[in-house]
């Protein structure tokens, strides 16, 4: 036991003392901050140069409204006022110009304006056809936007919205319908998502259902599952690398003169588990602190933490022992990668199916998939995190099956590790690995 602990501590220190670990710990928060920062920077440094565009109004009724709405927008809606009363422009001004499409210029309007767009005099131009306002006009081709920069949606979206509002107003007027009344009659009603009401056992009063929170019902389960994935991925491939490195550098033989293969393997597993728990403790503390700061920590049920720890432990032991066995059986990184591919597919399996399971966490599909031991840690954790959670017997059965599977993986991994760690030459086939598992 002492030797297993010595191996585990050395493995742990060898990992956490490296720059790679520190970088790894900081990588996620740094990436998140960087992403937010860059988006903020992008917004702040948005191109706010004036966007000029031409309006070819063949209906003859819409261009004045476009000009008026653009002027109103430029004056009222694109300026942001700071707390100190200062103002800053946050979006480009839209500056329309009417293009008189008559005679020769009328037929060649698109060519003439396209040329101006190419010369960067205009961002683009909109063509409104004669029957755009007609109630029974064809939808296609009534309104067209021409530009070189198709990725710019802000201006065409604004045009579409503004022109449609005006067209609708004109049509209602022509039909003699009161627009205010139409707005009232066509008001949308929204669904308020609530939990369940209950009667307080002590006071006998009805406790009203609480409004569902998107963060609690979606963010917490998905966050838990992906954090678990990250913790597994931080340890499992690293285990393969360490054992392969020891084998390639002939360190294994020195170690095996002092410890049994099983002690060595278990020590490595325990060390990797300690590394992974260190990481998860740091992340959970960081995320907890952030949620507390944002005032939403109460939306995370505390009971999730022990489940997370249990499933993290089972995942690490299950996948880690297989990873160690693969590392021991191979003598080259390329061979090991061939064996690791199917393992990684199994590790990622729950992430291919979690969306339908989130939609119906109580379905037969969700139940049986979450009872498949390699997928249980991720999917059962996901289901537990989605209120009201699965029945207790499903959780218990999942834990029992996964524990049995983990024991089987550690046992089989140890059998392969024992033989593979000193084997040299070509990587064994799957058949040979099974032979090693069954050997005495």
């Amino acid at each position: 036991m002492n030797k297993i602990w010595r191996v585990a501590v050395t493995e742990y220190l060898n990992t956490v003392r490296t720059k790679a670990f520190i970088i790894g710990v900081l990588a996620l928060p740094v990436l998140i901050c960087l992403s937010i920062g860059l988006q903020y920077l992008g917004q702040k440094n948005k191109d706010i140069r004036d966007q000029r565009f031409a309006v070819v109004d063949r209906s003859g009724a819409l261009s004045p409204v476009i000009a008026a709405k653009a002027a109103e927008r430029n004056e009222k809606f694109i300026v942001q006022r700071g707390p100190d009363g200062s103002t800053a422009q946050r979006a480009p001004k839209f500056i329309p110009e009417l293009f008189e499409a008559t005679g020769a210029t009328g037929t060649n309007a698109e060519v003439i304006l396209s040329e101006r767009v190419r010369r960067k005099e205009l961002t683009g131009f909109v063509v409104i056809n004669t029957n755009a306002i007609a109630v029974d006009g064809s939808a296609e081709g009534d309104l067209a936007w021409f530009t070189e920069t198709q990725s710019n949606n802000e201006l065409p979206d604004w045009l579409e919205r503004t022109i449609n509002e005006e067209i609708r107003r004109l049509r209602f007027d022509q039909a003699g319908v009161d627009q205010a009344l139409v707005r009232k009659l066509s008001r949308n009603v929204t669904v308020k998502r609530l939990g369940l009401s209950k009667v307080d056992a002590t006071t006998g009063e009805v406790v009203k259902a609480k409004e569902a929170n998107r963060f609690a019902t979606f963010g917490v389960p998905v966050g838990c599952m992906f954090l678990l994935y990250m913790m597994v991925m931080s340890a499992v491939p690293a285990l393969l690398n360490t054992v392969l490195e020891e084998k390639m550098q002939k360190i294994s033989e020195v170690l095996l003169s002092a410890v049994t293969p099983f002690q060595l393997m278990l020590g490595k597993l325990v060390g990797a588990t300690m590394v992974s728990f260190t990481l998860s403790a740091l992340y959970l503390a960081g995320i907890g602190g952030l949620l507390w700061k944002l005032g939403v920590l109460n939306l995370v049920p505390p009971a999730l933490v022990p489940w997370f720890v249990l499933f993290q432990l089972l995942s690490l032991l299950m996948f880690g022992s297989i990873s160690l066995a693969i590392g021991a059986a191979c003598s080259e990184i390329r061979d090991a990668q061939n064996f690791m591919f199917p393992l990684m597919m199994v590790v990622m399996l729950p992430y291919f199916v979690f969306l339908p399971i989130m939609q119906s966490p109580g379905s037969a599909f969700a139940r049986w998939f979450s009872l498949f031991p390699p997928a249980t840690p991720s999917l059962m954790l996901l289901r537990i995190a989605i209120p009201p959670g699965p029945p207790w017997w499903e959780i218990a059965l999942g834990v029992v099956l996964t524990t049995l599977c983990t024991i089987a993986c550690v046992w089989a991994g140890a059998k392969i590790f024992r033989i593979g760690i000193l084997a040299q030459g070509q990587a064994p086939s799957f058949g040979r690995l099974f032979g090693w598992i069954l050997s005495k």
Partner: protein
Amino acid sequence: MISAPDTSGRSLAVRLTNVTKTFGQHTAVNDLSLAVPNGSVYGFIGPNGSGKTTTIRMILHIFHPDRGEIEVLGERSTRAANDRIGYLPEERGLYKKMTVRRVLAYYATLKGMNHRDSREAIGHWLEKMGLAKWANHKVEALSKGMAQKIQFIAAVIAKPQLLILDEPFSGLDPVNLEVLRTAILEERQRGTTVIFSTHDMTMAEQMCDFVFMIYKGRKVLDGTLAAIQSSYGVDTVRLRVDGGGEAVRGLDGVQLIRDLGQTQEFRCAGDPQELLKALAARTRVHLFEVAKPSLHDIFIRIAAPAPEEVKHE
């Protein structure tokens, strides 16, 4: 000469009794019996792939024999004695990214040493090997010779009763080789039993109390150097003559063993005096020595002979 040396009356550090180890269809070690007395230096020799490393791994219980029994430091067929064994493998294994001090501390504690004792022992050995200033450097910064000395320290740091060294001198320059040889002999003086495998026959002749040779998995030599040499008779002649090896060509009953440039070794089937006369008639003789065959010669006779010359039990 394959009869085991007389070890009666001496306690044994290692005893192998009819040990066989196979890998698939290949028999790596075949019915091997061996008795290594306590406090001796026992040399393992044999060509590459003959079974030396497999035998060593079985003594360390890294491999388990298919048949036979292995007793090490009084422990039968268990790893109980492994903490009392120091091991330097043929291919060196050190963590490149760890510091010298940490890697030695790790190996020492794996052998059951406590932290305080290991700290003292590391300081002592690094000082002794002239590597004290490298204690906090990473292993990857060391030269090959320095790394080999660190590996040796890792093997002896826990004061083993049995020290197994697989090719300890390979790749060492003469200065480092002498340092290591002195350290090994000091360990022996401390009472440690030393088993070492080597391809350097001169080193084996100089250092070993007993020599054991394994060839194709079978024991072909086992005993003191004197006993082994005696079993081959006094049939070797060392010569230095004008004209070198060419001057001897065509003489009856003489077979060239080794041409060392300045001197040559011959095996003489007839009377050496007749050979000397014949040589003196041909050329000027500077050196003529009748001797027992060297270990090197014996090794060559066994490992690269005509089939009928291989001696098996």
